[in-house]
């Protein structure tokens, strides 16, 4: 056996740091199908997992990859997969199955330019709305967006912790730039890595109900084979897990699926503010585009413009209340993202016309230079 947590200083790509974060979080199953620019995550997991008591399976495609991840999770193992746009599209149906069956797992999308095959080796942030609404039906989801190799290490641990806490697939929406860029990554001592595992059921096995919520709205989860009655279906089901095709059951199940997220927003939503105390112009961003914004804020401050950045670490659920509050005290918003305005629309909705909310977007394929943001600031405000 080798060490699962590689304590020390490293020079890692975001993809490798993501894999190391997963291992540190306790992930012991990876079901994948390689795709640029996420292949290095699969590669790293394939070489590391067998040495720490885990397993790696390369499946025949991304549909099977996520199916294997859901299965492994029901076998009691923390599980993940990683892909990019085309594979992410294929995973959408089974993502819904994971949500409906309340299956903890982590799915990483290292975004590249789309639609379709698009720009395999170039970054984009064009799948952000797909990460929210890509599977059919109504649901809540948790989506994180790291902006550096160091952060993807920690966010992957957080993703597993949130997924185990709320019994829900958690998505990490990174991009080719963060995935392929190398930077210093410090991995802490293993005692300092906080990990959370799903609550195990207690009490009599014959009285067990698979989806009966605990105090935080989330049901304890047994593994298959432990003697509990485990019936897992994508059909609308009651607390026992059996299909019941009635409106009442649908309402009860949906309230549980969405309630466990909506009632715990304070625990789930993470944001970061940079130079926001006296900011008049707020840059809203996430992922690698936030690095553009940090540089743009510094350049703006040098020329006397009071700019700040509000960074979404959790993109979904969206930090609506925070944006609404900021809108009360600033002159305007600029959303900076490598798509043609996906999160921008959310920002506009929350700002509600109180102040201007504009977009610096890009079609994908290249990072947005800070100069473009600066130009927009001067044009608009």
């Amino acid at each position: 056996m080798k060490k699962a947590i590689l304590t020390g200083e490293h020079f890692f790509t975001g993809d490798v740091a993501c894999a190391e974060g997963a291992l540190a979080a306790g992930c012991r199953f990876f079901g994948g199908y390689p795709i640029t620019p996420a292949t290095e995550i699969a590669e790293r997991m394939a070489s590391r997992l067998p040495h720490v008591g885990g397993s790696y399976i390369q499946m025949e495609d991304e549909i099977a990859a996520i199916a294997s991840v859901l299965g492994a999770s029901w076998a009691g193992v923390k599980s993940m997969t990683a892909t990019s746009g085309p594979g992410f599209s294929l995973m959408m149906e089974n993502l819904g199955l994971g949500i409906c069956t309340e299956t903890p797992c982590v799915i990483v999308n290292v975004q590249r330019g789309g639609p379709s095959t698009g720009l395999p080796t170039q970054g984009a942030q064009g799948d952000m709305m797909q990460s929210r609404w890509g599977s059919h039906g109504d649901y809540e989801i948790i989506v994180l967006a790291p902006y550096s190799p160091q952060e993807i290490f920690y966010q992957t641990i957080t993703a597993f912790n949130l997924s185990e806490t709320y019994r829900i697939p958690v998505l990490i929406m990174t991009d080719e730039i963060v995935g392929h860029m190398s930077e210093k990554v410090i991995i802490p001592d293993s005692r300092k890595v906080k990990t959370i595992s799903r609550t195990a059921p207690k009490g009599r096995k014959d009285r067990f109900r698979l989806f009966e919520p605990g105090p935080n709205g989330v049901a304890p989860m047994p593994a298959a084979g432990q003697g509990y009655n485990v019936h897992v279906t994508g059909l609308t089901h009651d607390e026992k897990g059996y299909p019941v095709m009635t409106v009442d059951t649908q309402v009860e199940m949906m309230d549980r699926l969405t309630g466990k997220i909506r009632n715990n927003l304070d625990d789930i939503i993470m944001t970061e503010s940079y130079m926001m105390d006296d900011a008049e112009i707020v840059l809203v961003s996430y992922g690698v585009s936030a690095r553009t914004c940090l540089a743009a804020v510094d350049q703006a401050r040098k020329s006397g413009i009071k700019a700040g950045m509000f960074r979404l670490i959790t993109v979904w659920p969206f930090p609506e209340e925070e944006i609404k509050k900021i809108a009360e005290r600033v002159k305007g918003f600029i959303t900076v993202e490598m798509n043609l305005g996906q999160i921008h629309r959310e920002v506009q909705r929350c700002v509600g016309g109180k102040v201007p909310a504009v977009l610096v977007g890009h079609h994908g394929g290249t990072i947005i230079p800070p100069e473009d943001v600066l130009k927009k600031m001067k044009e608009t405000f």
Partner: protein
Amino acid sequence: MTNIQDNKKEVVITGFGGQGIVLAGTILGKAAALGDHRESTLVQSYGPESRGGACSAQVVISDTIIFYPYIKTPDVLVCMSQGGYDKYIGDLPDDGILIIDHDLVKAKRKVKEFYSISATRIAEELGRKMMANIIMIGFVTAVTKIISMDAAQDTVVKSVPKGTEEMNLKAFNRGSDYGLSVLKGREKKAEGRTGAVS
């Protein structure tokens, strides 16, 4: 571009896929981050093909945290292919440093600080053409001093496949020795002395 306060240096390395351009960038960034205990970022660009396409590595090294990892105006431009030279030479400011593989690149533009080495030919002499990148990194380390020699050598040894450490270190030293002799030669010339380079 150079920011004196942060002692920031921006290096672009270009060539084609298969030359080890990204590994060269990785060694530079890794040596700075882990050996010299500074901050560094490396971003890479390449096409969907695994070999032959245009390829570049951009390395930023600084004493403070680096926000934006892409380079608009490099302090140092290292070219191991004509295509890479043609694409990036316009970005190099007049006080930038240009370094080329002598046999693969024809540099038309005159810049103040210019260095060239036959990295690929020396690698062929050493028996492995694929070590040209390591020779180049040795040369770049010697003439620019953006990373320390100790950190560079240590990182080369840790970054190459097992069993090839000695060979690669030899290649690195060929590049750095040549770089140091070029510097020495220029010093002498500046002092008005002529004669063979020692």
